[in-house]
Structure formats: C-alpha cells, structure tokens
C-alpha cells in the first residue's frame, strides 16, 4: 500500500495516551496521589479534614509564585528575588493600611511595588544584558532590606480601618474552600491560558527554545523578557497580599528562603531550567508534591530540620532526570 505525501503530513506522531505518558507532570501527579494514598493508610493523622485543609492552604502560596516562576524559567531565566519581593509587597501593603488608607490603596501600592521590582529586574536582564542569576540575587538582598526600611524592622499586625477586610481576603473561605486556594486556581487558569493560547505565551517558549532564532524572526525578545520578570514579581506580590491576610501579621523574615521551594516546585512540575518547557498545571502539582512530603515528614515524626535536605535533593534529582531524558532523546 502506498502512502501519499498528504497522508504523511497529516499523520500524528502521538496518540493522546502516549502523549500523556511522556509528560513529567503526569508522573509527578501520580506520585502525589500515591503519596497521599500511602500516607492515609500509614498514618491516621494525614487524611483528617484539618490536616488536608492545612496542606492545601500551605502549598497554595508556593504554587502561586511558582506560576510566575514557571513563565520565567520557560524563557531560560531564573528569579531568585521572589521571596524578598513577597515580603516587600506585604510590608508596603501593611504599612500603607496601618497608616489609615483603605485596602484598595494598600493593595494598589503593593502591586505597583511588585511591578517596579519586576521591571528593574527585567530591564537589567533584557536591555543591559546582565545574567538573571546575578540581577535577581542582588534584588533578593535589596527588596528584603527595603522591607526592613519601610517597617523599621517591626512586626505589623494592625491594618487600619480595613483590617477585617484584609483578614477575610486571605483567611476566609468561600463555599468551604479556603480563599487562597480559589485565587491559586484562578491564577493558574489565567497562566495556563496565556501560555497556550496567546502570542505572548508562544514567544515565551520560543525565547527559551532558541533566543537567537526568536530575535531573528522578529519576536520582541527584550520586551517579553521584561514582561516575564514583571509577571514573576506580580505573582510574588499577589501572594504577599493574600499571605498577609492569612497570617494577620507581617514580619520581615516572611518568605525568606521561599525562592528555593518555588524553584523546586517549578522544576519538579516539569519546567526545564535550561528553558523551553513548563506548564501552569505542573507548577501546581510540583508545589503540591513538595508540601505533601513536607507534611508527611512532620506526621511521621521526622525532624523539621531535614526539610531543607529534601527540598534541595528534589531540585537536584529533578534536574538529573531532565539530563537523563535529554541524553536518551539524542
């Protein structure tokens, strides 16, 4: 039987099933479910409503920032400043509201702060041509320091006239689901939509795949690079607002070390640190898996001091898998 050229061109390489099985996100999803099932059997404390509520709420904050981080990592960049951006935006919100302004003005100030931080990162990286690692490492120090300056390194727990509104925003629940979880899902849907269905999203992937090619074909590479760092900072800023509402207080060590957890979540969720791949859903799943394992260590009586070892190992192992996969594909 002869096969025509048209048939060859129309043929599909993957069936839906083989496509699914080739996705790292799918396997991490399975791992998360298996871990949940195992923990439910092994301990009688995991599958309690209280603990599950804790787990979902805890991973939400990592997941929201991981969404922004995913976009940066797809372009082949990295943003180490997210934890500090979070505390700076939280602190700006807290200080502005404490001074007697409404929650709207406070949130707007926090969002503008996030945009400014992201724009500084982005412009230095895209237009000045500095390595993302260096720029955002500097910003990690700067933003946290600015948070200390803004608050004079005090704890803020009085949020002026809109105090209750802020606490309801972050700490309340709608239809029995914690508000942060709802924000996370909405933000994930938006991120997923942007990555898959917009020209901007397509260009983000193109830059990660071959920046030179993207430039040559007329993709506005520099503008898009600035925008991805703004998106990353925005995700940290939004997370800061929500987390402030959840905690009811802001200290200047909020979000410290968070960048590592966020990067781990992103990479475990299937984003490649070399750029060119990653999904919004993967960021959520990666964050969930980390939190489940963190939580289970506590329930199984392992000292909390071990957590850093696990998170660090996760990053290394995920990158190792990526290496092995790249080597076998060739």
């Amino acid at each position: 039987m002869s096969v025509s050229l048209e048939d060859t061109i129309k043929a599909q390489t993957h069936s839906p099933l083989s496509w699914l099985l080739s996705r790292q996100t799918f396997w991490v999803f399975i791992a998360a479910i298996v871990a949940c099932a195992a923990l439910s059997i092994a301990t009688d404390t995991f599958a309690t409503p209280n603990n599950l509520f804790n787990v979902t709420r805890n991973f939400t904050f990592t997941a929201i920032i991981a969404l922004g981080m995913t976009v940066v990592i797809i372009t082949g960049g990295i943003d180490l400043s997210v934890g500090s951006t979070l505390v700076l935006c939280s602190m700006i919100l807290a200080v502005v509201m404490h001074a007697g302004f409404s929650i709207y003005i406070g949130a707007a100030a926090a969002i503008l702060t996030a945009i400014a931080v992201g724009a500084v990162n982005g412009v230095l990286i895209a237009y000045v041509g500095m390595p993302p690692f260096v720029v955002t490492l500097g910003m990690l120090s700067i933003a946290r320091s600015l948070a200390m300056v803004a608050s004079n390194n005090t704890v803020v727990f009085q949020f002026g006239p809109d105090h209750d509104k802020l606490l309801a925003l972050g700490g309340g629940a709608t239809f029995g689901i914690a508000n942060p979880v709802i924000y996370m899902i909405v933000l994930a849907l938006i991120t997923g939509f942007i990555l898959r269905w917009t020209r901007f999203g397509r260009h983000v992937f193109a830059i990660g795949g071959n920046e030179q090619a993207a430039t040559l074909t007329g993709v506005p590479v520099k503008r898009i690079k600035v925008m991805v760092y703004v998106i990353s900072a925005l995700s940290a800023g939004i997370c800061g607002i929500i987390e402030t509402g959840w905690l009811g207080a802001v200290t200047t060590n909020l979000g410290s070390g968070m960048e590592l957890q966020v990067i781990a979540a992103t990479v475990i969720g299937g984003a490649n640190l070399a750029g060119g791949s990653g999904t919004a859903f993967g960021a959520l799943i990666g964050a969930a898996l980390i939190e489940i394992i963190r939580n289970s260590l506590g329930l199984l009586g392992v000292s909390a001091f071990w957590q850093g070892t696990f998170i660090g190992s996760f990053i290394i192992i995920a990158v190792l898998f990526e290496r092995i996969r790249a080597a076998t594909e060739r």
Partner: protein
Amino acid sequence: MAVLELSGISKNFGAIQALDDVSLSLGEAEVVGLMGDNGAGKSTLVKIIAGNFRPSHGTIMIDGREVHFNRPIEARQHGVEIVYQDLALCDNLTAAANVFLGREARKGIGPFGVLDYAAMYRRAGEIFAELKSETRPRDLVKQMSGGQRQAVAIARTRLSDPKIVLMDEPTAAISVRQVAEVLNLIRRLRDTGHSVILISHRMPDVFAVADRIAVLRRGKKVAEKKIADSSPEEVTGLITGAIAAA
C-alpha cells in the same frame, strides 16, 4: 527597474569594518549568487537587507524607494524574507509553530485574539506539500532530520508572497539529494517571479542556479558579473585574492 538596489553600504562593528562601500542590484526574477570566504561580509550584508543590522553608511532601495529597516519585521513588510544559515529554529516548538514564529495566526478580535492552531497546522501542511517535504506540522523540530528542518525554515518564507528571498548557506549541512531539492526550490521561486540572493560556499550550487554572481573579499565587492561570463576558476581566484578584481 531593480527590485533591490544597494548603494555604498558600509558597516562597522567598533573598529572592525565588516563592509566597505558595497553596491549591488537585484532584478526581478533573478538569482544572484553572493560568494566570498569566511569573514568576507556575506552574512553581514544579508542581515542588513533583512533588517537585523542597520548599515553604518549607504542606502537600500526596494522598487525604487529608499527604505530603512530597524527590525526584521519591517523588512518582511517590504517583501524581504530570509532563510538563516543556522535556520533559526526553536527545537522545543512544533514545525507549524516555527513556520509561524513572529507572525502567529490568531482568531478573535484585536488584542483578545487567541492562537489559531487549526489554521496554522493546515497552512503549514499545505506549504510542506508544496515543497514536497514529508514534514508533519505537529512534530517537534527537535525530532526532525536535517532536510525536514531545512523545509521548515524555507516554509517560513512562503507564508507571505515575498519579492525577495535571501538564503544564507541553504545547502551547507544537508545531504546530496536534499541539495538538489533546495536548488529546485530556488528555481521554482525564480520561475514564479521571485528574486533570490543565494549565499553559498558551494561553487557548483551557485553555478547551477544563479544568473549573476557577486564576490566579496574583506568587506569589499571585487566582482559582479553574469554566470555565463565567468567560471568557477575565476571566482575561486576572486575569493582568495589571486585575482584582484573583475
């Protein structure tokens, strides 16, 4: 009237003079072979025409009108398409995504338009069929052979109906059979009224398809003549400097 007229083009990168007072014209439905040794300035000249670089001096005229390109997209809008030497492909994207890179098809209204995957797969498939290439629009470029990658890069130029197609070493890294395919494609472009500038190291390819030949040496144009009036031996001499100019 010449489709493309370059006059007095010079380009400096700091202290390095990549091009020095180069003039060149390209007629309608004409293939001009641009030859020269490594570093002679061929790629720089092509990148200036394609809008990647701005010339330090000199003017570019298209259809008798002076143009200034700040970005590749502006050159495209004037009907200039280019196939880059390294093909400029993103391995992590599909063939169709690469064909449409930088000018993705969208459906919907204005800024709210979403990517039109169906239209892009369909159009890319049509172009691959025209090129007689067994390339699937949905396949990732990283899984493709050298010939398929070439087809993807060439398919890009067919999205619009360009006046001028620039090809930077299109036959450098592909098999003999694929070279013949690419040369046929260049002939097909000319027969349909397109003008082509072909940069190549491969003397037989240039002599097989070009109407005229221009030789660059150390940023200067040392010869421009009809293929019929020249010979591979003479061109080799011009490239190396054994013959000063012709």
